[in-house]
């Protein structure tokens, strides 16, 4: 078990593609860090640099107290779980788990003990003699996990380990990975583009965008106070509503169209207003505080709740409202929406940076 320290880590592919642009972060011992961001933002590259599968262009990576920039992947004391599991097709499950231990010269009975223990924890004991091709996707996933845990490494690295599983299994394995990481207490870095996975697994999230860190923080903090419109749009589903607003008599109103009135808390001429779908409340009468007036377009029931798509008058933007699954609204219906001032987010129009705290 160990800390992982990244200091101004950069990766340039072939002298042109700057995939990671100077990332610094201190990962505590035993912490579960999730790297999240859209496709191509450099998540895998960063993880692979920690693993030693990719050279570090500049900067420094430390695992524990040791700078590992020039340390061989096998000597970094990390274990990695790959998206396609990367099991050795010609080895039995047992040997898949034992391979890394054998190569480290571990005694046979100790290997056996560890493999059996991992098999017990992951419930793959019945398949130890099978080849990977005779396993289902979920079972392969477990074997891949097993290969990581038998090593008892300083850190686990996961690169989208669940994205090849079906939705149900994904949720099940997600819970299991979390439980496993908690009980083993091994420092983990987990890459995903799925914000839900990120939210549920992480002690701390790192939101990456175009090779830069947009925000680091506990999932709930990132959710409550997104540092930029990028994070606001990425974390949370449905995404936060972002509306271009300008100063109008004593408050803020929509840039195009009418039907919105919120206080100008930060004295902006122009900015982006952010409101999460669950913070828009359908009310009977036009409230005194911040409010909006919209016309219903579509009601989308998803079971436990429904999403209401509605637009402002005069061609204003469309917004999403989270409502109870029993709410009944017809297209064309006019609605009053109340918003609590503490649930308003403000972002700079140009940079997208959060205004205020």
């Amino acid at each position, binding site marked *: 078990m160990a800390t992982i320290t990244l200091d101004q880590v950069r990766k340039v592919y072939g002298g042109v593609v700057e995939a990671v642009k100077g990332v610094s972060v201190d990962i505590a011992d035993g912490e579960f860090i999730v790297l999240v961001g859209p496709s191509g933002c450099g998540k895998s590259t960063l993880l692979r640099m920690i*693993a*030693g*599968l990719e050279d570090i262009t500049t900067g420094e990576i430390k695992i524990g107290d040791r700078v590992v920039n020039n340390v*061989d*992947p*096998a*000597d970094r004391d*990390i*274990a*990695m779980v*790959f*998206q*396609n599991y*990367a*099991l*050795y*097709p*010609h080895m039995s499950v047992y040997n898949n788990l034992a*391979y*890394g231990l054998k*190569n480290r010269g571990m005694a046979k009975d100790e290997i056996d003990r560890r493999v059996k223990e991992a098999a017990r924890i992951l419930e793959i004991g019945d398949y130890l003699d099978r*080849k990977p*091709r005779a396993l289902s996707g979920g079972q392969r996933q477990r074997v891949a996990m097993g*290969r990581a845990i038998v090593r008892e490494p300083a850190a686990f690295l996961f690169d989208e380990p669940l994205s090849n599983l079906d939705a149900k299994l994904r949720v099940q394995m997600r819970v299991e990975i979390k439980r496993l990481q908690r009980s083993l207490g091994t420092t983990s870095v987990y890459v995903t583009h799925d914000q839900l996975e990120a939210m549920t697994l992480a002690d701390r999230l790192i939101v990456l965008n175009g090779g830069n860190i947009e925000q680091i923080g506990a999932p709930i903090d990132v959710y409550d106070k997104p540092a930029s419109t990028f994070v606001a749009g990425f974390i949370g589903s449905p995404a936060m509503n972002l509306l271009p607003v300008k100063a109008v008599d004593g408050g803020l109103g929509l840039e195009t169209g009418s039907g919105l009135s919120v206080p100008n808390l930060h004295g902006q001429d122009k900015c982006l207003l952010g409101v999460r779908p669950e913070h828009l409340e359908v009310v009977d009468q036009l409230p005194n505080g911040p409010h909006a007036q919209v016309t219903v377009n579509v009601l989308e029931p998803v079971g436990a709740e429904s999403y209401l798509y509605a637009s402002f008058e005069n061609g204003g933007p469309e917004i999403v409202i989270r409502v109870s699954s029993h709410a009944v609204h017809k297209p064309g219906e006019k609605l009053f929406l109340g918003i609590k001032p503490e649930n308003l987010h403000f972002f700079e129009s140009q940079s997208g940076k959060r205004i205020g705290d």
Partner: protein
Amino acid sequence: MKKVLFQSRLVPYLLLFPQLSIVIVFFLWPAAEAVRASFYLEDPFGFGSTFVGFDNFVDTVTSTDYGRVARFTAVFTSLVTFLSLGLALLLAVKADKVLRGSSTYKTLLMWVYAVAPPVAGLIGVLLFDQHVGPIVDFVAIFGWNLNIGVDYYDTAFAMTVTAVWKQVPVNFIFFLSGLQGISKSVQEAASIDCRSGFRRFWTVTFPLLAPTGFFLLIINITYAFFDTFGIVDILVKNEPGNNPVTLVYKVYLDGFRGNDLGGSSAQSVILMALVFILTVIQFRLIERRVHYN
């Protein structure tokens, strides 16, 4: 698998007819003819033939000459197979390192190697030419006076090198595409699990390459046995007496030079049996072989 139903029951046979007639005319008929001839003593001048039972086979197998040629063929085949597979694998592993990720290179290289084998064969023979061959001149520097077509061992050496030289590109292509077929993340997982690249090669890469390797092994044995006829023919220069020849070449020598059609047929029947065994082994093992992914 898609199943196609033909209206008429005749159509499938009609479609197969060209292929079947080629097989019958050029393979089955001559083979049957060889089997028949192997039981007869043919008059060299074409005046009839006498049934002699297994005499031709007995004569063939017991002749010292046949034993000598068979031994050479075995050594030659093993050497050519081992060397051309080994060299090709070595080159393919090096090329694979360079190629990972750059597909333009790959296509280019594949092209070069796809046109190479016939050309390489020609060059190989030229390299050993007694008069203009650079290899002959080169080894002369070290005091080795290569006498191809005269000295038994010199000819054997040239034969082996030329045969290997000609076969390496073919093996290379197969090995390279086999290597490229191994998942990158499996290689990476191995590099985390095992520090030594050498050990990694033998425990992960090589076993994953085994199906390709096995297929090539059979191909190469067949090649060394049968397809080296041209090389042997050029190098022994009509002096088969004190030069090494392969079993296939001996069939030709005895049949067409020695006019011993019965004996030569017996030899080719033995070779046919060998090919048959090889084919059975191949099918048996390929069936049992794993097809990864």
